[in-house]
């Protein structure tokens, strides 16, 4: 093997190794920094790139895509001295690979620590209730501060979100009880209001009912009075007609009416199922005297023979003959 043989083999190997070192394919989403003798010179964009081997070296392979980092859990004391556990996420994107590579050491760690301290200062200036209900405001304040702080590093923080805010367990329990009490209070008030409303409605209904009833009674009384008036009028008229009739005709006819009524009334008394003993006023006996009137009518009607029979019947009765007495005229109802 001659020297030329070895040279040829070595030359090929050198070419291959040099080529390997000089050709750089940067994938999309990354920027590579190039250092010449350790000093930054330029940034390789995605695609095929050639660098000068032996002089240039790839420094950092910087991810240019938006990235998300977890902000680890930490305890924060709020303005009103409640200790809450908070964690979050931050989204950032590198825009300047050189600055992000060389202006800051350990980029992610720097962002995490910066965000954590700012979470503490932002939340520490708020009450617990505010912290729990003003996440948007916290996020925005954090974003403003952190984004301004990281800008010398050639990157931008697009978003910081507080993920979880966990108050201590006993506080959560107290909050739960507070909420429950609030609900119970509302329920009680609603129920009481309902009861009140229903009672009012019921009373109103009763009132209306009573008014209507009274009105009904009033109306009925008016009608009654009218009816009585009418009937009295009718009675008066009837009496007048009767008295006219009497004036024109025979008194005996009147007696007949009275006797007829009397007997009917007596019959009713006798028919009463539970009263076999009948108390009669003394005067009632005298009314029976009107029977004499009946006799006379009969006499006038059927002749003398019947009249004598009637007289005989009267003699056998124990009723003294007091003669016909005009009974008081009672209004007929």
């Amino acid at each position, binding site marked *: 093997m001659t020297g030329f043989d070895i040279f040829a083999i070595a030359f090929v190997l*050198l070419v291959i190794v040099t080529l390997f070192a000089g*050709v750089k394919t940067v994938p999309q989403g990354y920027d590579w920094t190039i250092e010449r003798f350790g000093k930054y010179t330029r940034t390789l964009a995605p695609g095929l790139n050639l660098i000068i081997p032996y002089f240039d070296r790839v420094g950092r392979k910087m991810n240019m895509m938006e990235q998300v980092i977890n902000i680890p859990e930490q305890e924060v004391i709020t303005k009103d001295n409640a200790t809450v556990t908070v964690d979050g996420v931050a989204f950032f994107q590198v825009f300047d690979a050189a600055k992000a590579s060389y202006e800051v050491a350990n980029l992610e760690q720097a962002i995490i620590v910066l965000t954590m301290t700012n979470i503490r200062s932002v939340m520490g200036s708020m009450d617990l209730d505010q912290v729990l209900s003003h996440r948007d405001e916290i996020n925005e304040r954090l974003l403003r501060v952190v984004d301004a702080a990281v800008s010398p590093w050639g990157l931008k923080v697009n978003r910081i979100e507080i993920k979880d805010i966990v108050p201590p367990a006993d506080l959560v329990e107290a909050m739960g009880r507070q909420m429950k009490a609030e609900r119970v209070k509302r329920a009680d008030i609603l129920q009481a209001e309902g009861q009140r409303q229903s009672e009012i409605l019921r009373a109103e209904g009763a009132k209306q009912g009573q008014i209507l009833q009274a009105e009904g009674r009033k109306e009925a009384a008016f009608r009654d009075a009218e009816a009585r008036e009418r009937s009295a009028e009718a009675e008066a008229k009837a009496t007048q007609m009767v008295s006219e009739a009497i004036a024109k005709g025979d008194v005996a006819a009147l007696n007949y009416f009275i006797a007829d009524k009397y007997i009917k009334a007596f019959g009713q008394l006798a028919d009463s199922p539970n009263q076999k003993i009948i108390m009669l006023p003394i005067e009632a006996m005298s009314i029976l005297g009107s029977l004499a009137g009946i006799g006379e009518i009969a006499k006038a009607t059927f002749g003398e023979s019947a009249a004598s029979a009637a007289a005989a019947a009267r003699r056998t009765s124990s009723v003294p003959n007091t003669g016909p007495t005009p009974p008081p005229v009672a209004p007929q109802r």
Partner: protein
Amino acid sequence: MAEIFSTLGTWNWLIFGFILMALELLAPGIFLFWLGLAALLVGLLSFVINPSWQTQLLLFAIFTVAAVPAWRHFARSAGSRSQSNPFLNKRTEALIGREFTLEKPIVDGTGTVRIDDTIWRVAGPDAPAGSRVKVVQADGASLTVAAA
């Protein structure tokens, strides 16, 4: 060692070239392709003239090195028009020419605008909050605006 190279011949170069190109597909890095190309060229050349194996090796090395500027030239003319989204990972450059409303006034050269639900700090001539500004320049994460 020397025996391997001394037996190099036309067919071996061609086979070597194909193997390198196939390897390039499996492990993309572009330079294996050049090596394969160079190997094929050497193989074809050894059909015409029959150089010694040392010369073949040297030719292979020279072709490989020559493939770099040739490829670069080809890639420049073919690759410049190929990207359909030129603003990929260059979000700020996509904003150039767009108009926004200042959220905070520009005082001492810096203010903020709200773009896509995040806050961007912008540099430009002083202007009150609420005024319209137009992005004229993007340099990394910093935007330069002018009154629209």
